[in-house]
């Protein structure tokens, strides 16, 4: 009898479920209706199983889940919102995954093996690019015998064009992984190679790959890596090469178009099949907030897509927001976020210029940093500023900054280590948190407080997010290994 009654009750509950929901007191809340609309969107979602003509891989260096969160709030607050509700362009993509970034020997990775994993499909050791894990870092001779084939080489054989764009030196680890193979990521020019090492430096490999027809467009910083020591570049800065080679002139002799500033960038024309080499700074390009006289990441991305789109067979483009990482290393959150917003603008630009039907766009990062977030901040607490108290009676934060047990305010975000450490060498590695005003914390040059003193803040091994849209983007789901990214790209371009 008891069982029968329970069954009847269960039936009554289930049959009334819809009716009961229609009478939910919260059903007119915007939170409720937005989520209901999202359900309909998800139900209607159909996987795209066409062959991908184009693949664009966006990586913001050092833009893990935490850093991405900070960029979201910053972008929202810049747009006049409280921040958390803001949706970055990639966050509106239909597919996502968490990515495990460890390497074969690093619980905490660096940018060389992580980019290598995305470009070859296997993990390898820290410090090396597109060289397999059997080689010891820096073993030049062994590295030469254990190089791997890259996604760029695979798709260029299939007739696609290849581009690489970065705000870092184009010879820096992430962009280098598109075209170079090296047992040491720092071998960016010949002067960095150990004596007797037969491997070519990274800059020379870029020119070789242009000559071989693998790389069609390369844009970024790093002119110094391409010029001899006794040659000054257009901005008066000396080259770094000791072999006398002027790789810019060599590229030009291949017929390459060359740009070095905003004007020459704008003057780049339709060069037919000729490659493009654009080197906008002697070293890294400027942070977005300091940028003058050189194109933005979005502008470089747009120009590259327009050029590569001439190929009816499609293209592979890797775009790196290279300096999100550098600003995190500096402990200067403001520049992390302004470069992060510039990265998002480049994604929006690429999305606008391509078709979801034939272009797989992947947005991810290579690794996270030692960034962390305090609480309990009320809505709208500026992400670079102080953590203000929650308003129990409203939405936006109160005007009262929260205090630590030392009676001092603290910022929303901080770093576990780095140059912002409160422990100072001058004080025998002791210290206390300085007092802090909102004005000081919001200064564009402010370094968020950190604990462990280090000249350069470190990466962390924490997961990064991945967002994707286009053909076979639905293969990204759950928690994946970083090298899996290559396999989705490879599957998508070869799908029947």
């Amino acid at each position, binding site marked *: 009898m008891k069982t029968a009654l329970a069954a009847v009750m269960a039936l009554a509950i289930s049959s009334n479920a819809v009716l009961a929901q229609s009478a939910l007191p919260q059903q007119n809340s915007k939170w409720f209706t937005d989520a209901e609309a999202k359900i309909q969107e998800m139900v209607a979602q159909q996987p795209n199983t066409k062959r991908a003509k184009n693949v664009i891989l966006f990586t913001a260096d050092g833009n893990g889940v935490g850093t991405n969160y900070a960029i979201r709030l910053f972008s929202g607050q810049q747009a006049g919102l409280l921040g958390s509700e803001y949706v970055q362009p990639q966050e509106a993509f239909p597919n996502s995954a968490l990515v495990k970034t460890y390497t074969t020997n690093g619980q905490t990775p660096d940018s060389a093996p992580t980019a290598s994993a995305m470009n070859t499909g296997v993990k390898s050791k820290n410090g090396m690019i597109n060289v397999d894990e059997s080689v010891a870092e820096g073993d030049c001779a062994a590295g030469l015998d254990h190089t791997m084939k890259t996604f760029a080489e695979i798709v260029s054989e299939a007739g696609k064009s290849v581009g690489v764009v970065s705000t870092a030196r184009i010879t820096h680890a992430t962009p280098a992984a598109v075209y170079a193979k090296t047992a040491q990521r*720092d071998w960016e020019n010949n002067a960095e190679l150990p004596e007797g090492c037969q491997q070519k430096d990274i800059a020379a490999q870029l020119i070789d790959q242009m000559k071989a027809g693998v790389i069609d467009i390369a844009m970024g910083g790093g002119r110094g890596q391409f010029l001899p020591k006794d040659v000054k570049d257009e901005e008066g800065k000396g080259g770094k090469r000791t072999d006398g080679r002027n790789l810019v002139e060599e590229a030009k002799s291949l017929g390459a178009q060359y740009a070095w500033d905003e004007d020459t960038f704008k003057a780049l024309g339709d060069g037919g099949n000729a490659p493009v080499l654009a080197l906008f700074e002697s070293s890294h390009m400027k942070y977005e907030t300091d940028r003058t*006289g050189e194109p933005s990441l979005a502008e470089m991305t747009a120009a590259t897509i327009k050029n590569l789109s001439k190929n009816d067979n499609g293209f592979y483009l890797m775009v790196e927001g290279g300096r999100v990482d550098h600003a995190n290393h500096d402990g200067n959150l403001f520049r992390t976020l302004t470069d992060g917003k510039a990265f998002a603008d480049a994604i929006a630009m690429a999305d606008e210029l391509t078709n979801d039907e034939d272009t797989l766009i992947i947005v991810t990062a290579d690794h996270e940093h030692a960034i962390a977030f305090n609480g309990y901040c009320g809505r709208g607490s500026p992400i670079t500023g102080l953590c203000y108290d929650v308003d129990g009676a409203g939405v936006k934060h109160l005007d009262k900054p929260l205090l630590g047990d030392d009676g001092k305010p603290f910022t929303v975000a901080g770093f576990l280590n780095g140059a912002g450490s409160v422990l100072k060498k001058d004080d025998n590695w002791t210290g206390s948190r300085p007092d802090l005003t909102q004005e000081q914390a919001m200064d564009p040059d402010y370094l968020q407080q950190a604990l462990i003193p280090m000249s350069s803040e470190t990466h962390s091994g924490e997961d990064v997010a991945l967002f994707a849209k286009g053909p076979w983007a639905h293969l990204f789901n759950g928690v994946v290994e970083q090298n899996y990214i290559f396999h989705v790209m490879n599957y998508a371009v070869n799908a029947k």
Partner: protein
Amino acid sequence: MDRRQFIMGALGCPALSAASLSLSALTPAFADDTVKLRDLYNKDLSFSDYALEREGKRVSISGFMAPPLKAETNFFVLTNRPLAVCPFCETEAQWPDDILAIYAKRVIDVISFNTRIVTRGKLELGTFTDPETKFVSRVRLVDAVYDKA
């Protein structure tokens, strides 16, 4: 303000600012006529009006002491944000464009790269190559004194 007054200010203000957030705007780095290094430059790295108007005059600039080349020197470089790497010591050092060369009145006592300091000296504009270090500067403070902010 002479140096003694400045140091007194440096010692005195933190206690005040701890008592009240509104008073912390008086901390030395932001006090009276002290400006930040970045105020010498426009975004395109041309000299600001502030710099042009004060050429040849003594000014007070806050920033950070980059690690100096050697122990016994009266020369160091002031940066906007902490720069841990000695720019002379490594070929790969990333030397920011917006810097200030400081020629101190005395042999310097090194202050760690991430401690804000205030320097006061005579502002010189124009390219100058240091005959000893070969360091090329566009703007300098000479006959300078400095202390922690």
